[in-house]
């Protein structure tokens, strides 16, 4: 995968950390997964399984998450505890720390390695710093997009069975997350993790 494309994926990931609206974030992670699917199809040597799995997973998750967004409309977006610029700075700092700490991991290119670590860092920061419950699910999807990039860049290719399994598990986790988000919304009137935390004093 070209360095430029990797940095496009990273930029989309960073945007997930700073955007305000849940639907934008869903659109961004879907775009990322579709870019990965196209790249898998272009790069693939006869085996199109990865491309199909990534594309189907991207569309299925986008449909599920956008449906959940439409069913749990909030009068105004749940405010994050940390300002967008600070979140972005935190995400970039975490990504840089990871790339500094983790040695060469043997992927196709150095850019891909840094991209993978950055996307995982962004996913964790998105899940940890956003109060809106759906952003936690989006953060997990962002991490998995980073791992999908790593799988595409493996020197000997990855196992189709594992890729299929990862996509299935991720969809299942997102589905359960969506069910809980709806239930939390119904219970508290907002998909806000601060309301959940208040239960524990």
């Amino acid at each position: 995968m070209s360095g430029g494309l990797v940095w496009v994926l990273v930029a989309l990931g960073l945007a997930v950390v700073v955007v305000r609206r849940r639907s934008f974030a869903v659109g961004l992670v879907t775009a990322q997964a579709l870019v990965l699917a196209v790249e898998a199809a272009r790069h693939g040597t006869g085996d199109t399984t990865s491309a199909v799995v990534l594309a189907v997973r991207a569309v299925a998750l986008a449909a599920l998450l956008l449906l959940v967004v439409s069913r749990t409309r909030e009068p105004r977006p749940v405010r994050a505890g940390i300002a967008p610029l600070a979140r972005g700075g935190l995400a970039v700092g975490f990504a840089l720390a990871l790339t500094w700490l983790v040695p060469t991991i043997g992927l196709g290119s150095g850019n891909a390695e840094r991209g993978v670590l950055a996307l995982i860092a962004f996913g964790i920061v998105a899940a940890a710093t956003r109060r809106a419950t759906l952003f936690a699910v989006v953060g997990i999807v962002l991490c998995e997009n980073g791992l999908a990039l790593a799988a595409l860049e493996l020197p000997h290719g990855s196992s189709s069975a594992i890729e299929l399994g990862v996509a299935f598990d991720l969809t299942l986790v997102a589905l359960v997350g969506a069910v809980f988000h709806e239930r939390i919304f119904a219970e508290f009137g907002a998909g806000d993790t601060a309301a959940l935390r208040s239960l524990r004093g």
Partner: protein
Amino acid sequence: MASRELLALAVVVTPVLGGLAVLCAPRRALNGVAAAGAALSAAFALALSAVALAEPARALVERWVVVDAAAGMLVGVIGVVGVTAVLVSPAYLAIPSDRGLVPPGRRPRIFYVLVFDFWAILAAIPLMGNLGGAWLLVEATTAVSAVLVGFGGKPRALEAAWKYLILTSLGLGVALLGIVILAAGAAHGGLDALSWRELSHVRTGHGAALVAYLLLLAGLAAKIGWAPVHNWLPDAHSEAPAPVSALLSAALLPAVLLVAWRSSQALSPVIGASTAQSVLVGFGLLSLFVAVPFLWQAMPWKRLLAYSSLEHMGVIALGIGFGTPLALAGVAVHITGHALAKALGFYAATPLLGHEPRAAGHPATGIGRTQPSLGAVLGVSLGALAGLPPSPLFVSEVLIVAGGFAAGRPWASSVAAVLLTLGFLGLAHALIETTAGKAPARDRPAAGLRGVVLLAGLAVPCLLALSAAALWLPGSSIARALAQGIR
């Protein structure tokens, strides 16, 4: 197909069929069908366990499936906890609930289907011959068990389930990064590259392999509930329905721990056995450090059991980290004894909450004074978990600490011994308060008590037999097979 492969297939497929049978069963026959399905599933699990432990040196190691002593032990434990969880479920399901995650009319059916699915996935984890496949199964348990944790539908249950889902999913994402790094260093692509045998031949270089191992263990730690990534554990275990809490603590945690154990053994030739084991000893000691102060606090019954899970997963990590046959014999006894005692403790929570509803949010005291049978069950469970002789957990902890000295880790063993003594004192205090402490007037019946007393009657001789077996185990072929791992 060999008999062991067929048995392994039956162990995983039977709970799935049990779930399907429950799905199709008439409403009035639900409990009976579930019990029959569970009994059959447990019978296959115990058969496989007997076969694997009878000839531990003759392990079956294939691309997808492993049937060795460790798998046999875990599958047996999962079978016993699974069947007892299903048998005590009618008492939980009889409690009226209008806030549940599913409509009240469909509550029992969906609950049983989820329990059977969870059981099937759990049983497949120890039998999986491949790190990638094991990761997929562990991740799949997250989705199913999160629904079960939040099944009650109360706000605190929702919060616990949400925390569990997000933290463990993120943790497993980190573990998957470790697996990808290992796959990058494999000699070839495809699924075989991640089989337990092939992992010892990865060519990533020492630094990358060590990072992969650390990421893998840090990710799995989030699921096992090792400190410092255990935040979900006390909430999920205390808010889940009692049979689910038992499955989580007695079956899920050790099953995921086995994946960490197998990874440590497989990667030892690459990163060095001492390094691999030191990481486990570190997690073990840290978990004990974090758990012990909580065991000294008065807290609600299920929450106390949850913190005791943190302590016991730490003890098992220590045993695996020490890695000597003596310590690993202790690990085998500890996993089995912990499962029996902990499951019994969680099952007793249903009659306890019926008898003393305030026990959901407050420490239960003097239960033996107002409901002697229930007090006795709580006493058996907590006494065994505390390691009060002749509990098998006393013997296993002695074996693990002695195994640590034998492994040349006197400092870690000494610190562990001190922490275990402090943990024992904390739980012993809780035992006295729970059974014989001051008791307010109580006249509510303890619903479902008969079944739990019956289970306790079965558990006590099993625990005593385990204590006796623990004295023979260190020199046995089972301990040698556990120490050898998959070759």
